[in-house]
């Protein structure tokens, strides 16, 4: 007997180990309600202990590798990307302002939705708080699409919490250890998430296939589904809040097992194969949280301030429009309005005639003997078109003070500025100017 044991000890050891593992496997499998076999969702104490050991062996080196990688990347970013921080900050501020306005615009829709949900007795969950975590490792097997996070029970994580990124959903927490946690990705064959097509409103269950693609299963073949259509979470699985992006439809294939059904292959919005940081939704609320209410009120205030500013600008524009002289004279027929005058493309607006002209009145000083200022210094440059109007005024003043004083232009008062100004503006209205030919000889002097 002893010789038999010695002779076949290798085989016996193999058999003992195999039988022990098969028995262990049998204790981990249960028949589900649907009659199918499935893994026991709650690990036994022995299984749990083994998972804990494996995690304790593998996690520290993974954490060290990830930490050194993050440290190097952080140094690089902190040092080199700092140059662009100011511009990025301004861009982000602009984005925040825009998003605040958009949020305020969506607020009313959300409130209406809440009222309707209240009527239908359906509680909509909103993301209340999240915890950022780093992906440190994976299962190493393509039959098991799970990965590990560097945060666990100590950070408040628990089983069945949703894991997302800014792009879309990633998976749910399957197991939690003291300092790490295991996440089941949405492209695993045993995962399941309620999803809905954005435009068709077709609902389905998202799970993975053998190639690691995410697919919606159990859709009737008569549905018209176009590639590129967006897929969102439906919110009925009690894990993912409603409306989070899942991905877009990549293609539609026939269900290999059931002829009447199709499978929709999804291109996930989140890069599930190359994840670094994720967010774990640690709490949801049936109503807006205090923080969200505060944000909404801020948005409303900002929106109100912006609307008030726009209204103020509009009022100011109206007042300015009232005060400025109009281009339409109500006393003239329509065909004689200045705007319809075609002879002069830039019509000259003449000021009204003074009731009591004095020496400061433009052109009126020409008649005063002590002024010494030529009343029509710019007369020679006055365009010919102004001539009839000058004569129409019928002032009968002296033709030119320069000819009377015998001085050149602008020297009487030493005010060269006024002289040069008048020369630079030949079209300046001069209602009481004299005929242009009177000053022409003086220019020749």
């Amino acid at each position, binding site marked *: 007997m002893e010789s038999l044991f010695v002779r076949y000890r290798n085989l016996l050891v*193999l058999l003992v180990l195999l039988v022990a593992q098969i028995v262990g496997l049998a204790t981990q499998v249960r028949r589900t309600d649907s009659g199918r076999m499935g893994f026991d969702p709650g690990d036994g104490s022995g299984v749990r202990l083994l998972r804990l050991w494996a995690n304790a062996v593998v996690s520290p080196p993974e954490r060290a590798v990830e930490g050194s990688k993050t440290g190097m990347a952080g140094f690089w970013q902190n040092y080199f990307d700092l140059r662009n921080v100011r511009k990025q900050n301004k861009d982000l501020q602009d984005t925040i302002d825009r998003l605040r306005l958009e949020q305020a615009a969506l607020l009313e829709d959300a409130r209406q939705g809440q009222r309707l949900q209240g009527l239908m007795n359906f509680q909509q969950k909103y993301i209340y708080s999240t915890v950022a975590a780093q992906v440190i490792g994976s299962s190493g097997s*393509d039959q098991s699409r799970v990965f590990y996070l560097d945060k666990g029970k100590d950070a408040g994580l628990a089983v069945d919490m949703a894991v997302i990124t800014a792009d879309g959903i990633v998976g749910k927490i399957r197991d939690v250890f003291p300092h790490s946690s295991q996440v089941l990705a949405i492209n695993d064959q045993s995962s399941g998430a309620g999803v809905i097509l954005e435009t068709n409103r077709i609902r389905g269950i998202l799970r993975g296939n053998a190639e*690691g693609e995410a697919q919606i299963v159990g859709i009737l073949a008569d549905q018209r589904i176009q590639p590129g259509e967006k897929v969102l979470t439906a919110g009925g699985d009690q894990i993912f809040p409603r409306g989070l992006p899942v991905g877009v439809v990549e293609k539609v294939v026939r269900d290999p097992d059931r002829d009447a059904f199709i499978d929709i292959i999804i291109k996930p919005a989140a890069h599930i194969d190359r994840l670094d940081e994720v967010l774990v939704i640690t709490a949801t609320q049936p109503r807006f949280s205090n923080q969200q209410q505060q944000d909404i009120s801020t948005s409303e205030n900002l929106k109100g301030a912006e609307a008030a500013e726009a209204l103020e600008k509009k009022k100011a524009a109206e007042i300015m429009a009232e005060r400025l002289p109009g281009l339409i004279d109500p006393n003239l027929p329509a065909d004689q309005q200045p705007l319809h005058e075609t002879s002069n493309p830039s019509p000259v607006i003449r000021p009204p005639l003074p009731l009591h002209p004095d020496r400061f009145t433009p052109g009126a000083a020409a008649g005063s003997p002590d002024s010494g200022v030529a009343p029509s210094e710019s007369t020679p440059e006055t365009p010919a078109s102004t001539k009839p109007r000058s004569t129409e005024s019928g002032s009968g003043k002296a033709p030119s003070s320069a000819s009377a004083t015998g001085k050149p232009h602008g020297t009487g008062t030493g005010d060269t500025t006024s002289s040069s100004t008048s020369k630079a503006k030949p079209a300046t209205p001069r209602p009481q100017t004299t005929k242009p030919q009177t000053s022409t000889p003086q220019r020749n002097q």
Partner: protein
Amino acid sequence: MPLLTANTRRDLEVHRYPAPVYLLVPVAALVLQALLPRFMGRYAWFDLPLVVTVYFALGRRSPIQGTFMGAILGLFEDALTHHAIGINGIAKTIAGYLAASVGIRIDVQNNAIRLLLNFALSLLCSGIYVFIYRVLLGMELDYNWLNELFRALGNSAVALILFPLLDRCQVRD
């Protein structure tokens, strides 16, 4: 055929390694197997714990040691997944036993034999995995045989590089 049989003293000697190697190499294989797929995505066609199991089983030429090495690495690999613990354990237990049993009879220093052995044992492991999952446990599992073939080729390629490196750790008399 004489080239393939272990008939010289050198071929029949049992390889010995420093004690830390027995611990560090399997742990490194588990850690790398968990880390590398993050960077390689779906192209991570290798199974480092299986390659290490085959190496030590061939080197030690002890079916019992090969069996235990395969069982431990397989169980730890299972523990990192969300599946039941024991599927990979059974597959690698058998692989370790077979590798050690074959190592007694053939020249394990030959690269062609190493390559073929890794290829065959990788396919065997995949077959055992699917058998346990679908037949023993009666559960649904979609699998792609092309992926398994690529993994077997990948394991062979890794073995060609890794085995000479690990040979340098041997304790020479």
